[in-house]
């Protein structure tokens, strides 16, 4: 088990280079969305220049998920009715779909499974954010979408070493990430954070990518809101795994980080977990509606 060679940065860089480029129009829009002085008019103007993005956004805006009584016909109207924050999360949903909607064989995930898990976990995280009184629930949704980005980089090596990683988990009762790091030198959360930073994705996305399995390890200087966001995504992730929504060979080999949740003032006991599972299960129709609008 200990004889596996550790990965080198060159090997990882080659994997990153093999990933398809991000769609530039979506990247431009997402950067605009991060600027504090951006407004709805700027946003509508840039989106209109890209027919694919325009059509995807209108399709999503008109999905049953938002339950609007009338048809939205333009981006300007979509921004006016749904609001800047919602449009922002839809842009990131499209970006995430582009990045994640592919087979990730090393983790035993067929076409669409990683994306399904990303979307389900994000919808769950948003619901939990509402439940736990977070003001900007769309920010939590967005932060959750690319939490497993690092799997794209590590999958080839995990696939080759899977039997060793599995055996390490079972022998030491540690989670899959700990085993990845012990055997390969890196885990998918570290690589996800690195990739998110390299791609200039929002800070919250990078933080979630790194700590969504282990919120207790967040740096001390993490703000209260960031900590809560990571914890809510951790919970959304845990519940999506329990319900086997887009789960691969790493299965349920993760943990509920009670210490991390406690630092954000969240306590989950048996009855609370049952209630949350029940509530989140009832979101399935909404998830199906969003997924079908994105062509899943």
């Amino acid at each position: 088990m200990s004889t596996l060679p550790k990965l080198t940065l060159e090997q990882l860089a080659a994997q990153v280079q093999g990933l398809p480029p991000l769609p530039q129009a979506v990247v431009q829009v997402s950067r605009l969305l991060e600027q504090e002085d951006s407004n709805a008019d700027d946003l509508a103007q840039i989106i209109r220049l890209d027919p694919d993005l325009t059509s995807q956004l209108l399709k999503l805006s008109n999905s049953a998920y938002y339950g609007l009584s009338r048809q939205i016909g333009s981006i300007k109207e979509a921004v006016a009715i749904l609001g800047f924050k919602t449009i922002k999360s839809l842009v990131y949903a499209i970006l995430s779909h582009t990045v994640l909607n592919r087979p990730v064989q090393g983790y035993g995930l067929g076409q669409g499974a990683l994306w399904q898990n990303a979307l389900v976990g994000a919808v769950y995280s948003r619901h939990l954010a509402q439940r736990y009184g977070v003001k900007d629930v769309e920010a939590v949704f967005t932060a959750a979408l690319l939490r497993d980005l690092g799997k794209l980089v590590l999958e080839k090596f995990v696939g080759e070493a899977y039997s060793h990683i599995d055996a390490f988990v079972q022998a030491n009762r540690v989670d899959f990430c700990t085993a990845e790091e012990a055997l390969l030198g890196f885990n998918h959360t570290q690589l996800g954070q690195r990739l998110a930073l390299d791609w200039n994705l929002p800070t919250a996305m990078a933080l979630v990518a790194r700590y969504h399995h282990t919120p207790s390890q967040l740096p001390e200087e993490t703000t209260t809101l960031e900590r809560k966001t990571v914890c809510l995504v951790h919970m959304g992730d845990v519940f999506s795994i329990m319900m086997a929504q887009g789960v691969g060979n790493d299965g349920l080999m993760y943990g509920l980080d009670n210490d991390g949740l406690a630092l954000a003032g969240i306590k989950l006991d048996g009855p609370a977990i049952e209630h949350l599972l029940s509530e989140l299960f009832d979101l399935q129709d909404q998830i199906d509606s969003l997924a079908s609008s994105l062509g899943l």
Partner: protein
Amino acid sequence: MTVWPAAWACREGLSAIMTTSSAATQNQPPLTLGHLLICTDKQATLHLPNVGSGLVVVMYDRINKVAGAAHILLPDSNLDANTPGNHAASADKTPAPAKFANLAIPTLIQQFEAGGGQKTYTSVRLAGGAQLFNFGGGGGNPLNIGSRNAIAARANFTRLGYPVEKADIGGNKARTLKLVMQSGQLSVTLLGGREYFI
């Protein structure tokens, strides 16, 4: 009883009674969490994928070649009403037919018998209930929904005269199940792991 084509009837909250045409067999939708199905097509192979913490219960009549399956989320519909803010999302919804063991199992048995299944020839098997690690949570494991589901399922089946013959519960890998209608053979494949029969 209404005979539904294979389609997505089981996702609509209705029990899908599969027809015997080969086209229906090929189009058999996977059984999803919270739903149930009845099959009377002896040529069919039922696919029951994506079983995580949930529990799949399988009834099979070896003589009449009738099967019933449900993918259960939680043990009991009577959730603790004292938990703050509970059940806000589902307060005014009819629960999916197999969301709760205490509601799913009587419905499954009733539809299984309506589809021709007879108690004398029937076996009941359970599989699922995988579990995450509980780090830093103190005593007990609040994540053991799977074993609580299995206890509830056994109690409900026993109460209604169908003792559970075999069970494959726990672990930390998701499962995919396959039931061959002709033979009643039920295989379990652990994602990333081995295949075995129960």
